[in-house]
């Protein structure tokens, strides 16, 4: 059979979202690929130019629907820098805890989708089940399960409900136990290794060349984590390790994410202890009125006042569950951001798709793309 193009997407079980991977195959071997994005382009950057600073947070949750907290955090950091707002320390810890819970939830979602790609049905439901427990926890203090609108310029919306830290600790213990089960279901299986070892290899030099970051980069032996290299929020005050693997294949990425979840739990436990010991305000007391009172619903009339506030530029970088996310925000003294630019890690990771898919089998595409952990919401924005 000669070569032919097949469309894997936009509605295809492999895509985990809405995009199209055009694959040129020769028999069962992939000879060329071309990714088509844009099926989920909602113009979040443009809409942000028409929203007040706190209203953009709502959009951020939609940016990546499985890692809403991380994207809220990214935007908030840039906005606070551009608006010259200082944040109470307790809010920083709450943000760190939220982001880490979000990382575990996002990785569990990845785990569920990934094992399903290689045909494992049972762990898929296990991953979803345990992710749901984290969502329950989010619901208990933000009110939302996927879209939280929780962080605010200058802090976070509200403090934790009573008894929260105990529940969170209990969940941490439960999750740590479950991770063992996950590893047994995957790593103990010879077929898993047959499917995942030595495919989708992208070495460190190529990762840097093509802008690939996150677990993919760390699986290639580069110890790069923005939480360590350029600490933000309270990450310089918590202890954790950055896992590194050398094989740069799908199994290595699996191991990286599993270890990251354990490290996240470690961070969460430290923040919970800190939160117990240090009560205090969670939002800056002296916020400019147009940013809204902490409990005011988004869109209150205070926004409509003309303001005369210093201009500013904000640049923030966070280690999102998928990798390095950047935001650049221009504040021209108006009510709305003048321009917001977000850089999504998955955007860069998918752009290098030709480097790690070509030459493998068609059947390798789902595990490889699964190991990339794609969230189309943040690619298309």
């Amino acid at each position, binding site marked *: 059979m000669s070569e032919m193009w097949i469309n894997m997407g936009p509605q295809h079980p492999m895509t985990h979202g809405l995009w199209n991977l055009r694959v040129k195959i020769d028999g069962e071997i992939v000879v060329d690929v071309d990714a088509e994005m844009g099926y989920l382009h909602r113009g979040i950057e443009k809409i942000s130019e028409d929203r007040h600073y706190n209203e953009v947070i709502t959009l951020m949750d939609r940016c990546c629907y499985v890692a809403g907290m991380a994207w809220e955090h990214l935007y908030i950091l840039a906005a606070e820098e551009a608006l010259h707002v200082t944040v109470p320390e307790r809010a920083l810890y709450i943000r760190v805890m939220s982001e880490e819970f979000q990382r575990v939830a996002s990785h569990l979602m990845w785990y569920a989708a990934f094992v399903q*790609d290689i045909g494992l*049905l049972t762990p898929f*439901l296990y991953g979803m089940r345990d992710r749901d427990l984290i969502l329950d926890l989010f619901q208990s203090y933000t009110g939302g399960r996927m879209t939280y609108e929780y962080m605010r310029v200058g802090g976070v919306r509200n403090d934790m409900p009573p008894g929260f830290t105990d529940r969170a600790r209990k969940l941490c213990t439960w999750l740590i136990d479950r991770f063992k089960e996950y590893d047994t*279901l995957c790593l103990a*299986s010879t077929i898993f290794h*047959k*499917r995942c070892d030595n495919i989708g290899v992208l070495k460190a030099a190529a990762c840097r060349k093509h802008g690939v970051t996150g677990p993919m980069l760390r699986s290639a032996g580069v110890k790069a984590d923005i939480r360590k290299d350029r600490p933000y929020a309270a990450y310089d005050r918590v202890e954790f390790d950055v896992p590194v693997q050398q094989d740069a294949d799908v199994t290595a990425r699996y191991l990286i994410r599993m270890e990251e979840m354990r490290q996240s739990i470690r961070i969460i436990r430290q923040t919970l202890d800190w939160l117990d010991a240090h009560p205090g305000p969670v939002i800056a007391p002296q916020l400019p009125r147009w940013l809204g009172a902490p409990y005011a619903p988004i869109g209150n009339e205070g926004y409509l006042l003309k303001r005369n506030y210093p201009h500013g530029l904000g640049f923030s970088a966070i280690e999102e569950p998928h990798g390095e996310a950047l935001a650049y925000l221009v504040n021209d003294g108006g009510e709305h951001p003048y321009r917001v630019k977000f850089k999504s890690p998955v955007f860069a990771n998918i752009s290098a798709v030709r480097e790690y898919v070509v030459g493998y*089998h068609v*059947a390798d595409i789902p595990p490889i793309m699964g190991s990339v952990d794609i969230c189309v919401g943040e690619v298309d924005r």
Partner: protein
Amino acid sequence: MLSLYSVAYDLISIPLTAIAAHLPAPLSAWLVNTTLLNVLGALVFCAILLGASMINTIMLIWFERKMLGRFMDRRGAMHVGFAGLLQNFADGLKLFRKNTRRPKDADFVGFYAAPTAYMVSSLVMFAILPVSTGWSAGALPLSLLLALVVFSFAPLFIFLSAWSSANKYSLLGGMRSAAQMIAYEVPILLAVVAVVVLSGSFDLTTIVYEQQNYWFWAPLFLALIVFVAGMLAEMERIPFDLPEAEAELVEGWNTEFGGMLFAFFMLADYVRALVGCFLIVLLFLGGWTMPGWVPASATSFPLAGIFWFMLKTYLVFGVFIWIRASLPRVRTDQLLRVGWMRMVPLSLLSIVLAVAVVLTKCLPVIGCVPGIGGG
């Protein structure tokens, strides 16, 4: 002895004779004529067989859904009927009412003929396999061979359906399916040869009777492994379900089929699964016989043979469900490599073992007893 055919014959002959008693002579003579009664009896026999096998197939799907649910920490079907027993009948009705659409470029004959042929070729198996004494249509001296021949029709129809639905995914799935089934036919047949060597017969009923002293899985453990792996591939179940690998090929060769055509494929897949379990039970697990230490009261009640046979079948299928719940899917080249380079040598080795058992009349565990390996 009570046989299914005699039951079917009685079901039709008793009411007809009763009616004929009230009719004038020429009409009653025509009605109670042996040829007509035999034909009608055969039809009733087929209807019972079809009904029983279809109900069993649907129960098999229910069994799988419930068990998979338990493996996955959920409950499976539970709302329609007691414990969701009627869920699959409801699903079937839903599929029956759905529109079947044919893609513009799809071949008319192939698109409609392939699902039908696949279904029919799978159902024919039930007439060949003896579930218990007196169940089978007739004692065929080569029933094992016939069963395997009918069972191996499937790749042809799968490829036909894939080719005629004019879809690249279907085509890839069809090719994979054909390659996989042909690759695993060989070890299956070789494993069966070991059984035939040990039992000295191609007749399934004889093979079961040969197992009254000891079940064949003990001397032919290797052959059992090969046969189970091959059956997994033939049934296209995880870990060998890559012709319909949903992650990369959407649904493989049945991507384009919807409504009742899809239901045909789906049902036929489970019919084949049931048949595969039947074969494993018949060839390796003693069929409807039970070992001597089982009290006679447990093997002598009416329909005891069918009861034990079905129990074994469902247990074997439970193992398949267990495998499905815990293993990932392999890749095409790995599957073919395992098939040709592991399964074929193993099955050849099992033939050698079977020959050794026949020659020495000894078994590893049981020891040397007369009656072993003697046809």
